[in-house]
C-alpha cells in the first residue's frame, strides 16, 4: 500500500484567508476565556511581532488594532471533511485526521501515471481550493503523516515508495512530530532520545513499561509491522460549502475568485462520486440576514468548474446587487450519476451535442431563456401557426407546398392600396398565386385567404394576401429574404 498524507499547517488561519488575505492584523485565539492565547496569527500580525502561544492581551499590546477571532474546531473539521470529499476524486480511501487527510493511492496510482504526477496533481488542486498543504508519501499512513509534518516544519524528506527504505528515511525525523502526550515527549528528551532512530534502538518491552503500550503500537504502525486500519470518509449525499470574503465585495467581479474555489471543491467532490448536477444554488450573503439566491441550471449533469463559472458569471452579470456581499455559499442537493466523457480524437455526435447544449445554456444565462429558442414545424395550414418555438426533429410531410417566405411577420400588416391595387414602396406586381388557404374553422380562428407572391419595383418580394370576406383589403404577411 502507498499512502499520501496532506498536512494543512495553521488550518484556522487558512480557512479564514481562503477567499483572500487581509491587510489588517488579526489573530485566532484559543484556550480559556480568562486567558486566551494566540493560536494563529496572520502575516500582518506576525510582522508586528506576534507569535503563536502568546497571550492575546500581550499580542494586543504589540499591534495597534488587532482583530481577534475565536478558534472554531467544528469549522476546521468541516473544512477537512470537505477536503476529503474533494480528494475522493483521487482514491476511494480517504481518511480525515487532525490537521490533514491521508489518501491510499496504490490502487489508483496507475491511473494518474505514477506517484510524481499524482502528487503534483493533488498539490495543484489544493492550491486551487485556496489551501496550503505539505505532503508526505510513504508505505504506511503514519509514516506519510510524519513526513508531511516534517515538511511543514521545513525539514527535507524524500518520498518513500519501498517499505524496505522506510527505516532509513524516517531515521532522522524528530520525535515531536508524533501525536504523543507532551509528558512522554519531555521524558524522552530528558533521556536524550530525540529522533526516530534513537527510539527504534530501545527495546520495546522497556518502552512499553515506561511510556505505555500506545507508544510501541504507534512505532509498529509506523514501520508497517502492525496493521493500521482506516475507515474511509463517506461524504454526505448532498454538497454544501461556504466561503467568507476577506472584505465586503461591492461588485460581482470580486465574487468570481472565491466562487471559483467553491466550484473547484464541488468538482472534485462530484468527480469522486462519478456524479454531476443539473441544479446548483448559489447564495450571496449580504449581512443582516439579507441574501441573494442565484439558481444555476443545466440541461445535462455538469460538474466542470470552468464551465459552471462561465455560466455563473453571466447570471451574476445580470444581477443588480442591493448590498455588498460578505460570504458565498454553494449548495447541490441532487447529485446525479454522470458518465465521464472520453476524450475523442475526432469529436463525435455526443461531443457535438454537449457543445450545443453548453452554448445554448451560456447564451440563455445572459440573454434570458425566452430569447434563445429553436424553431420547428407545426402541423397547421394557417401560416402563422405553421411553426412553433422549440426543437422537434420530426419532419412533417406537407406534400408540395408553394414556396414560403424566410421572414413571416408576427402580425400581418395592412397595405396601402392605390385604386384597389396594393403597394409597398411602389406598386406590387404579382409573381405567383393565388394560393388559397382555408383552415382553422374548427377552433374559432378561421382564416380563408388568397396568398400571392408579389414584388415591388425595388425587387423586394413579399407574401401578401387578402381575405375572402373583404377582398379590398390587402395584407403583407411575409418577406422573401
Amino acid at each position, binding site marked *: 500500500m502507498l499512502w499520501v498524507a496532506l498536512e494543512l499547517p495553521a488550518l484556522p488561519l487558512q480557512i479564514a484567508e481562503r477567499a483572500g488575505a487581509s491587510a489588517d492584523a488579526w489573530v485566532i485565539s484559543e484556550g480559556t476565556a480568562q486567558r486566551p492565547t494566540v493560536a494563529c496569527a496572520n502575516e500582518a500580525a506576525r510582522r508586528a511581532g506576534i507569535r503563536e502561544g502568546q497571550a492575546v492581551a500581550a499580542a494586543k499590546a504589540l499591534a495597534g488594532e488587532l482583530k481577534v477571532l475565536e478558534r472554531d474546531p467544528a469549522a476546521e473539521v468541516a473544512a477537512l471533511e470537505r477536503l476529503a470529499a474533494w480528494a475522493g476524486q483521487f482514491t476511494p480511501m480517504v481518511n480525515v485526521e487532525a490537521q490533514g487527510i491521508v489518501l491510499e493511492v496504490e490502487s489508483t496510482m496507475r491511473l494518474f501515471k505514477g506517484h510524481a504526477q499524482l502528487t503534483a496533481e493533488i498539490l495543484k488542486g489544493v492550491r486551487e481550493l485556496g489551501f496550503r498543504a505539505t505532503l508526505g508519501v510513504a508505505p504506511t499512513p503514519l509514516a506519510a503523516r510524519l513526513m508531511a509534518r516534517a515538511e511543514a516544519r521545513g525539514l527535507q524528506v524524500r518520498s518513500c515508495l519501498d517499505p524496505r527504505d522506510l527505516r532509513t528515511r524516517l531515521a532522522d525525523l524528530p520525535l515531536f512530530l508524533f501525536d504523543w502526550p507532551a509528558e512522554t515527549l519531555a521524558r524522552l528528551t530528558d533521556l536524550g532520545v530525540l529522533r526516530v532512530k534513537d527510539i527504534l534502538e530501545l527495546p520495546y518491552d522497556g518502552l512499553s513499561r515506561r511510556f505505555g503500550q500506545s507508544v510501541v503500537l504507534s512505532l509498529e504502525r509506523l514501520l508497517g509491522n502492525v496493521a493500521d486500519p482506516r475507515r474511509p470518509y463517506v461524504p454526505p449525499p448532498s454538497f454544501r460549502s461556504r466561503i467568507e470574503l476577506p472584505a465586503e465585495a461591492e461588485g460581482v467581479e470580486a465574487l468570481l475568485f472565491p466562487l471559483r474555489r467553491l466550484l473547484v471543491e464541488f468538482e472534485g467532490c462530484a468527480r469522486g462520486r462519478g456524479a454531476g448536477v443539473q441544479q446548483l444554488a448559489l447564495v450571496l450573503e449580504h449581512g443582516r440576514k439579507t441574501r441573494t439566491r442565484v439558481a444555476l441550471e443545466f440541461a445535462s449533469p455538469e460538474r466542470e468548474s470552468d464551465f459552471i463559472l462561465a455560466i455563473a458569471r453571466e447570471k451574476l452579470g445580470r444581477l443588480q446587487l442591493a448590498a455588498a456581499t460578505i460570504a458565498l455559499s454553494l449548495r447541490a442537493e441532487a447529485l446525479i450519476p454522470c458518465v465521464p466523457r472520453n476524450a475523442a480524437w475526432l469529436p463525435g455526435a455526443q461531443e457535438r451535442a454537449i457543445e450545443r447544449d453548453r452554448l445554448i445554456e451560456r447564451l440563455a444565462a445572459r440573454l434570458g431563456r425566452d430569447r434563445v429558442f429553436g424553431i420547428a414545424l*407545426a402541423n397547421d395550414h394557417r401560416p402563422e401557426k405553421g411553426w412553433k418555438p422549440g426543437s422537434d426533429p420530426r419532419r412533417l410531410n406537407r406534400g408540395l407546398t408553394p*414556396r*414560403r417566405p424566410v421572414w413571416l411577420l408576427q402580425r400581418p400588416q395592412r397595405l396601402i392600396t392605390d385604386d384597389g391595387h396594393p403597394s409597398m*414602396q411602389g406598386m406590387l406586381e*404579382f409573381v*405567383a398565386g393565388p394560393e388559397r388557404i382555408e383552415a382553422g374553422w374548427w377552433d374559432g380562428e378561421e382564416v380563408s385567404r*388568397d396568398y400571392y407572391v408579389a414584388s415591388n419595383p425595388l425587387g423586394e418580394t413579399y407574401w401578401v394576401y387578402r381575405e375572402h370576406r373583404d377582398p379590398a383589403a390587402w395584407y403583407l404577411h411575409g*418577406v422573401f429574404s
Partner: protein
Amino acid sequence: MLARLPGVWRGGELEHAVHATVPTGHAALDRELPGGGWPLGTLSEVLHDGVGIGEVGFLSGALARASGDDRLVAWINAPHVPYAPALDQAGVPLDRCVVIRPQSSEEALWAAEQALKSGACGAALLWLSNVKNQYAWLRRLQMAAEAGRAMAIFFRSTADEALSTPAHLRVVVSRENGELKVRIPKRRGPPLSSFVGLHDLRGYRPLQVGAVPRILTVVH
C-alpha cells in the same frame, strides 16, 4: 519559370484552399468565390438594401451544408423570426436552427462571438446596424469564426460599402428584373467588377392564367 513555381501567387488568381468552403448551390457564384464556395472559418459580409430581395435565400444551400456534422445555425438579431416552413423548404435542418433575440447591440455581438467560437455552430448570421467600434468588433468576430471554423455572415446596408472591413469576403446583392445580382467588391483575390446573376426564384409556382387578381371581385 516563376509561373511554374508552386506556392507563388499571382495577382490575378483567386486564392485556393486556404479556408474550407461550402458550395452555395449556385454554380455561377461558386466559380467566383475563392475555394469554390462560401468560406467557413471566416467572417463574410452581405450588403443589401431593404429586406426581401433574397439576401438570405441565396445562402440557403450554404447554410444547409454548414449545418451538416450536427452543427447549429444561429440567427442572431434577425429582423423577424425565421419562418420554419421556408427554411424546411430550403433544406436547412430546423432542429439545427437556434434563434437568438438579444436586446442590445452589445448582447448581439457577444452572442455572435460566443456562438462562433464555441465550435457548436456551423454558421452564425448576424443583423446589426449602428455599432460603436464596429471595426474592432468585426475583427473579434473574424477571430471567433477562425477559432470555431464557422461560417460568420454579417448583414449590413450597402451604404457601408465605403467602410473598410476585416471580413475576407464582401458581397453586394441587389435584384434586377427578377434576377439576383451579386457583386463581390472584396474577396481573396482581385475584386469582381461585373455581376453574377442568380436565378434564385425557381420554385415559385407560375401565376395561373386568368388568376391575376381582379380587384374588388371576390375570388372563389
